[in-house]
């Protein structure tokens, strides 16, 4: 039997007094490549922050179980130490910390040779000596995020809109990299437009709408339905697909 790596039960969040999610449930099995669809503002990014343990995203009720452990009381770095990792949508610039140093933080035994070859692969070689995210374009910071995840090697990787802001020329590179990275691990890919699905062989898709997961199924079929009828149409859909 394939093990569950992540199990979210009946989750409700409190963000600065504002409630979010109506008891959200989500299970991810080891080796899965789950695509999470949802309209803007549905709380897709909030879900990632909550899984990582950003203090602003307080758990009001429910549980987040990662590798069999309730991680609610763990700090962000403790969760990362347990095998979580994320690529962010809008990572903050930090003055005086270069991308090169970030990669060493992600993997403190990384060699400069490896940094070089990895960054060349992501077309980020010339950014290694620049302050991380400072003046990076949308696409550049996505590639930088991906590069950091490659160094970090998390067991469960969370990708927040890895394709937004990436130019046409590089979407394939980003998509292919995520796809091969996820061959030997588990991932959740958040996407708004679904463009990146051309490159990532996702095993399952689901839709976050109005505070809950309303649909599970074939990611390509879900994407088609969303494109045809929009998220509202998706929510009104009678033949909701369910888990398993």
């Amino acid at each position, binding site marked *: 039997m394939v093990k569950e790596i992540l199990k979210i039960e009946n989750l409700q969040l409190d963000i600065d007094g504002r409630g979010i999610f109506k008891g959200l449930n989500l299970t991810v099995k080891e080796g899965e490549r789950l695509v999470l669809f949802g309209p803007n503002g549905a709380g897709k990014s909030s879900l990632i922050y909550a899984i*990582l343990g*950003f*203090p602003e995203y307080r758990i009001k009720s429910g549980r987040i179980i990662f590798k069999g452990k309730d991680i609610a009381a763990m*700090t*962000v*770095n403790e969760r*990362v*130490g347990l095998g979580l*990792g*994320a690529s*962010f949508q809008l*990572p*903050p610039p*930090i*003055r*005086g*910390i270069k991308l090169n140093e*970030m990669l060493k*933080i*992600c993997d403190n035994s990384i060699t400069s040779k490896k940094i070089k070859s990895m960054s060349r692969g992501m077309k980020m070689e010339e950014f290694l000596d620049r*302050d991380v995210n400072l003046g990076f374009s949308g696409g550049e910071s996505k590639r930088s995020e991906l590069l*950091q995840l490659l160094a*970090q090697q998390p067991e469960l990787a969370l990708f927040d809109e890895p394709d937004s802001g990436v130019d046409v020329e590089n979407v394939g590179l980003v998509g292919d990299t995520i796809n091969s990275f996820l061959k030997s691990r588990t991932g959740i890919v958040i996407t708004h437009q679904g463009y990146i699905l051309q490159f990532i062989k996702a095993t399952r898709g689901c839709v976050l709408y109005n505070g809950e997961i309303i649909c599970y199924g074939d990611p390509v079929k879900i994407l088609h339905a969303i494109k045809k009828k929009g998220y509202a149409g998706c929510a009104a859909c009678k033949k909701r697909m369910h888990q398993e």
Partner: protein
Amino acid sequence: MRCMQKENAPRVEDYSGRVPEHKAVENLADLPDDVKEASHLAGIEPSEKGRSGSFFQIDQSVICARSSQDGVEVMSIEHALNKHSWMKDYYWKAVDADKDEYTRSLKTGPVKGYFLRTHPGVETIHPLQSCLFMERDGIAQKVHNIIIAEEGSHLHIITGCAVHARVRGGIHVGISEFYIKKNASVTFTMVHNWGEDLHVRPRSVAHVEEGGTFISNYICMKPVKSLQMYPTTRLLGRGARASYSSIVLGRNDSVIDIGSRVLLEAPETSAESVARAVARDRSRIFARGHLVGHVPGIKAHLECRGLILSPEAVIHAVPELEARRENLEMSHEAAVGKIAEKEILYLMSRGLSEDEATSAIIRGFLKVDIEGLPPKLAAEVRKLTEMEMSI
């Protein structure tokens, strides 16, 4: 808000304690270990390795002054005043002796301090080092320094100020006059390691002629009772350039009021002033800058960033641009705040603990690219800031 409150201003005459004489040494290596160690933390190399000359003053005694390179002069100001008749053209010619009570306190009486000069076309192979050291408690250390880079010469200086651990109170007043001739350059890196009960009042003015460059770097990471200075550069010749960088850490009850002022008085001159201030504990930091454009076509930029690490600390950034002609390019940016939580969380999501993330951000914040330093010296300066931050 012009300066620190008047009533707190220390008076030189309150520190008239008897100043003992100190014996001269042949080599800095012969200094007592505690003096060596304290000066080393202020960037001084007691072995004199990698230095083209050394000047060392303890209290009011010059105990070492020598150069190991032809065309490079290192001597006490007293010696220079006796040796060079033309010194009258430099002495008190950049700094106004009647500027304030501190400059006035140096108008009369025996003169101490250093004289550094590169002859025309000469470049210092290694930086010169000069140390102003206070060993006796409760005294006033008064120095007058003159630095001259003759035409086409390049002078690198690292200067460290330090005190003996036993010094509780005292005042340091320092006049520095820089003369940078045509196409010459001076890179002046100053490390201040004063004591918690010390008042410090440097007064410095630089004159830069055509095509000349003055690069001034300042690092102050140790507590001090009060420090107030507003070094000024006058860019007098076409194409002259000034660059100020400062890294200041306020600790305990330190009151630090520093700025840099550049008067751009000739065509095609340019100036840049970059300051980083970190305020801890109950420290108060005033970070000032004043750029004055007197002629069209000049370029000047001021940048000040401050980080507040304690609810009782204060940073007051005062950037000033003064444009006196049309058609000039002057800008400033100032940002003061606490460490952004999203930066900490970002680093934590890459595996650092909260404390590790915080110190990585502070280290990064202080990592100003200091211009004009030989790589080895740059590494030393970096090491100094890292060392202080880790305490």
